[in-house]
């Protein structure tokens, strides 16, 4: 076990939040087609409120702090916030689109000791990237920012969100990352919007392309190992929990709302009305999230993938049940191994149990026409 994993385990045992993702604004200068946020300002926390939250997080034991948005640099007090965070000795990671980062901003981030900058790049081609961000010229500005940051010796990671519209450009983004001398990470997860609108989900890459990703050694390393059938789960797996959300990590919105994770919109408290530690320790919602073990999941506990699936409880929550399957992760497990998930099998069984032809008698219906009407020749 690595030293970091040991510390995570220790934080878990002590019930401490070691990581917090803090969105300081939802405002943004881009309008990405897949974004899950409402970009209007509904009353962001002030500088003083954020400073107060940072002090509380420090006292609570938080070490890893991700500052994100929206676009973080839309806040005029962004550097003031980072400065205070660094005075409080957080390990600070900044997520940005880089459009507003020039030489001066890059130098300031370096001076403040920011550990890592994550920048979203959707394509190496301006016409594709800019069509996703809906900001003409954004790719060139983002690449320029990466060069400024690299010139300062900062650690930069390109985050490549994969969608149907940019999937084929993924090798080009890898080559761009290599040329710029920065790390590359990809994410094929497109989430519904925070208001429940699921229209963005249609942008997800289809399963066949997901399979290509999982079979690319450049991305996953040892393909045979990565795509291996899941081993039979032991007791430790069944007593385990899916991820760090609510256990050692949580998310705070620009309005002070606390959630188990940025992808888990279960309102658990608000730092404008409550102390962070009171929310962390006593929130009914966080307690419920923490109480769930793999064996408590009605469908997933019987799934072959239960020990290896990346099941996201937040996505499951957005599908209606935090204990239910996250179908996007079912698809990933299936495309990775070729073995259908328990949820997929259940749906198939439910489908096969339905009659192929439903016959509705219209006798006494008072309608003219044939006495028998065939409906739904094929049921889903």
């Amino acid at each position, binding site marked *: 076990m690595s030293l970091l994993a040991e510390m995570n385990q*220790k934080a878990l045992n*002590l019930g401490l939040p070691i990581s917090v993702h803090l969105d300081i604004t939802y405002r943004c200068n881009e309008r990405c087609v897949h974004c899950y946020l409402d970009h209007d300002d509904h009353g962001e926390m002030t500088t003083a409120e954020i400073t107060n939250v940072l002090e509380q997080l420090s006292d609570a034991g938080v*070490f890893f702090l991700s500052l994100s948005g929206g676009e973080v640099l839309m806040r005029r007090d962004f550097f003031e916030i980072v400065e205070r965070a*660094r005075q409080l*000795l957080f390990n*600070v990671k900044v997520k940005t689109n880089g459009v507003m980062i020039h030489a001066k901003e890059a130098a300031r981030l370096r001076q403040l*000791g920011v550990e890592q900058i994550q920048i979203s790049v959707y394509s190496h081609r301006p016409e594709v990237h800019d069509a996703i961000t809906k900001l003409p010229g954004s790719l060139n500005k983002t690449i320029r920012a990466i060069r400024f940051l690299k010139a300062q010796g900062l650690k930069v990671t390109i985050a490549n969100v994969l969608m149907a519209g940019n999937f084929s450009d993924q090798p080009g983004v890898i080559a761009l990352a290599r040329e710029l001398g920065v790390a590359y990470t990809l994410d094929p997860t497109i989430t519904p919007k925070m208001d429940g609108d699921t229209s963005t989900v249609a942008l997800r890459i289809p399963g066949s392309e997901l399979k290509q990703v999982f079979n690319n050694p450049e991305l996953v390393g040892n393909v045979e190992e990565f795509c291996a059938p899941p081993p039979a789960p032991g007791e430790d797996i069944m007593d385990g929990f899916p991820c760090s959300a609510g256990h050692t990590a949580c998310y705070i919105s620009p309005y002070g709302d606390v959630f188990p994770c940025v992808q888990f919109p279960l309102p658990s408290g608000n730092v404008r009305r409550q102390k962070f530690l009171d929310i962390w320790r006593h929130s009914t919602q966080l307690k419920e999230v923490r109480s769930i073990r793999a064996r408590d999941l009605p469908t997933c506990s019987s799934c072959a993938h239960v020990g290896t699936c990346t099941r996201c409880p937040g996505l499951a929550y957005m599908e209606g049940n935090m204990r239910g399957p996250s179908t996007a992760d079912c698809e990933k497990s299936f495309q990775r191994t070729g073995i259908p998930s328990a949820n997929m099998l259940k749906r198939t069984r439910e489908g096969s149990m339905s009659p192929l032809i439903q016959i509705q008698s219209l006798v006494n219906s008072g309608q003219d026409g044939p006495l028998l009407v065939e409906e739904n020749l094929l049921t889903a």
Partner: protein
Amino acid sequence: MAEKYIARSTAIAARMLGGEMMVMSAADSTFFTLNEVASAIWQAADGRTPLSEIVDGKICQEFEVDREQAQRGADRFVNELSEYGILLVSDQPLTDTSSSPESR
């Protein structure tokens, strides 16, 4: 032998976790955990207190260790962390500690 004064670098992230100090270098992301004794030295590294005084007044008092052994351990610890730029070492007091990270 000349006195040593030690101060924590500002280019680090640090947090106490269950009696152990986690420290990460912002420069190269090297991650350290310090045991209780090392954490006590770390927290006392204000740039003004000589290392020998930290060993006498804090380590020997709080951890019931032999003075010579404690001094050797402290020297080793300071040398190692200074190689990574995590601790700043000088034979003069490091007076500019206003920008030193807060010890939490």
